[in-house]
């Protein structure tokens, strides 16, 4: 396999190249039954991926193997196992700097080991994708689903999207490259799912044919030139502004960081298009009881909504699809009728509750209740959500 096999119509593996709109919205789809790890392979197979670097950690290992198989099958340009997650994320940075569409995956402790890389990624303006299959953080040792790690990523300057299920993981991880690579965005993207609940659960999923794929990444449209010696180098090219008194380092660094966050903000219209909105709302439009959640918690909230409907109680679910940028306007609009906002979460700190509270501060009269909250691999039965709702609403009334 060689990049030289690429023609105007076909990529190097012989797939016909199509627009993201065609791939996501127009191409005919067929029903399959697969896990999140398997569906990620199917998504990456259709993304004309140049490079991937992997490292084993539960629960993302299988997804990382399967991307390796794509390389062996001739779909991915270059692939190898790195030495640990810090190394992997640096290798990913090198790949993306050199002009590659690059993907990697990690989970929990791996995310924290790699942490120094994520703000470096965004500061370097590389549009790589990290598929995060969230898992608990040590100690004590756990491999169970828990999304505490996402709280550490919130201020890294990377975009963060959250998929609820296998189908969403497929569609989001394709859209992720397209949005991240927009020249006016061009920042890394983290596509998160809850480990095990999505990575290991087999669900029915609608997929387009696998003989079509995205057009390749064009690094020459990037706001910073790729590190490939094909364009004139910049003197400050992707270098830190640490030149002490030599340059106006403080102002430069501050404006650079501001620009990274502005770039994340500029992804809104693209994300809105490819994700059909930054937040999805289901249930009774005028409900006073509103669940705000992401990932698996939103699935459980929808179950609770169905149970409450049976009990004659109106409620609705606002599922946040993007966490960075945070969908402030969508949240405010969707919670206009709310008296009680419940934020069910799979972590001990309630990072999403804090995000929601901050976003609505001074704009909403609703009471934000960060419950139920489970952690360390506990499940979130619908009964736990109903209990919180009934107790709080009763008290409030």
């Amino acid at each position, binding site marked *: 396999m*060689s*990049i*030289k096999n690429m023609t105007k119509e076909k990529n190097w593996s012989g797939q016909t190249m199509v627009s993201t709109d065609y791939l996501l919205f127009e191409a005919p789809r067929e029903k399959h039954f697969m896990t999140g790890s398997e569906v990620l392979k199917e998504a990456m197979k259709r993304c004309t991926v*140049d*490079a991937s*670097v992997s490292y084993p950690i539960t629960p993302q290992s299988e997804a990382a193997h399967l991307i390796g198989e794509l390389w062996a099958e001739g779909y991915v*340009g*270059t692939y*190898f196992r*790195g*030495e*640990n997650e*810090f*190394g*992997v994320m*640096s*290798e*990913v*940075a*090198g*790949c*993306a*700097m*050199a*002009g*590659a569409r*690059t993907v990697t995956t990690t989970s929990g402790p791996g995310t924290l080991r790699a942490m*120094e*890389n994520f703000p*470096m990624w965004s500061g*370097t303006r590389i549009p790589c994708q990290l598929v995060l299959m969230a898992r608990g953080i040590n100690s004590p040792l756990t491999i169970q689903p828990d999304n505490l790690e996402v709280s550490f990523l919130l201020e890294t300057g990377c975009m963060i999207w959250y998929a609820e299920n296998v189908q969403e993981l497929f569609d989001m991880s394709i859209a992720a490259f397209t949005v991240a690579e927009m020249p006016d965005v061009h920042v890394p993207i983290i596509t998160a799912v809850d480990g095990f609940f999505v990575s290991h659960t087999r669900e029915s999923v609608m997929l387009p044919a696998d003989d079509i794929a995205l057009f390749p990444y064009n690094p020459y449209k990037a706001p910073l030139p790729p*590190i*490939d*010696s*094909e*364009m*004139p*180098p910049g*003197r*400050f*090219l*992707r*270098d*830190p502004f*640490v*030149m*002490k008194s*030599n340059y106006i380092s403080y102002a430069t660094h501050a404006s650079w960081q501001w620009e990274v966050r502005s770039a994340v903000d500029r992804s809104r219209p693209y994300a809105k298009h490819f994700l059909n909105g930054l937040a999805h709302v289901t249930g009774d439009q005028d409900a006073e009881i509103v669940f705000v959640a992401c990932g698996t918690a939103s699935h459980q909230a929808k179950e609770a909504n169905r149970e409450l409907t049976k009990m004659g109680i109106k409620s609705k679910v606002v599922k946040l699809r993007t966490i960075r940028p945070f969908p402030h306007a969508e949240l405010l609009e969707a919670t206009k009728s709310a008296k009680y906002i419940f934020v069910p979460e799979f972590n001990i700190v309630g990072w999403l509750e804090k995000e929601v509270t901050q976003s609505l501060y001074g704009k909403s009269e609703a009471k934000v209740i960060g419950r139920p909250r489970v952690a360390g691999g506990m499940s979130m039965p619908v009964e736990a959500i109903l209990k919180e709702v009934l107790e709080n609403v009763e008290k409030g009334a």
Partner: protein
Amino acid sequence: MSVDIYKINPEFRDIMPKEILDLEDNATWDGEKRGINDLTDKKEILEEHSLCAGCPEAAALRYILASLPTPSETVIVNSTGCTSLMFPHIALHTVHSLFGNQNAVASGIKRVLDWRFPDKTKDVVVLAGDGATIDIGLDYTLQSFFRQEKITTICFDNEVYANTGGQESGSTPKGQVFKMAPKGKVFDKVPMWELAVTSGCQYSVKLTASAPKSVAKVVREAILIAREMGPSYIHLYTPCILEIGLDANEGLWEMKEQDKDRFVSFKYVSPEAEEYLKNCKKEGIL
């Protein structure tokens, strides 16, 4: 894309600074016999740098840049420390990303350049200090050797964390008093040049920067070997004259002293690399 990327749009010539014009008019690039002798009359790829007066590291960097076989197709990956202060001043593609991850970043860059440009030769050269190479980045240095990445790694060993104010490093000789080793360093200098050999480098050389022509020869050999065979390593003594209490004009003297002591010449060339270098000589590329 070769040297064309350094050509200036004729419309802009009248407003470009002289040092940029010089890069087009009087620097040596690929396709010609460039080398250490260019330092006397050609435009250097390094513009004025911000290191201390008389710093041997700055001299070493000038020798290295003058010796690159094809600078217009060379990517330099550096790290945090004194070296990171010089790289914004060089006219090549350079990357600073984090402290210690230079060989990981270089691995990614090299693999993708090989993937994207199968018909071209692109050299990836890592230039980092002893802290970056041997302490904080040791894992990534060695792992890139284990994986046989086709990159050249050059360690500027000044035996101290100089940029942070003179703390002991793994490369500091035993007994030396530095900050964080107020009673003297208790363990031996890490023999990185030997670790490079046991970790799979095809070529590992230890020397000081006292003789420009020796540095030039080693750099050229190391890069040619990395292109075809696998990782190559150069361990170069560039003392921090500030931290060991020498004057600006005493760096060369110190390096000459160490040529006979801690930096007595070490050179390993794998049998395959030896054969390859012989062929390079025959073909006139060395």
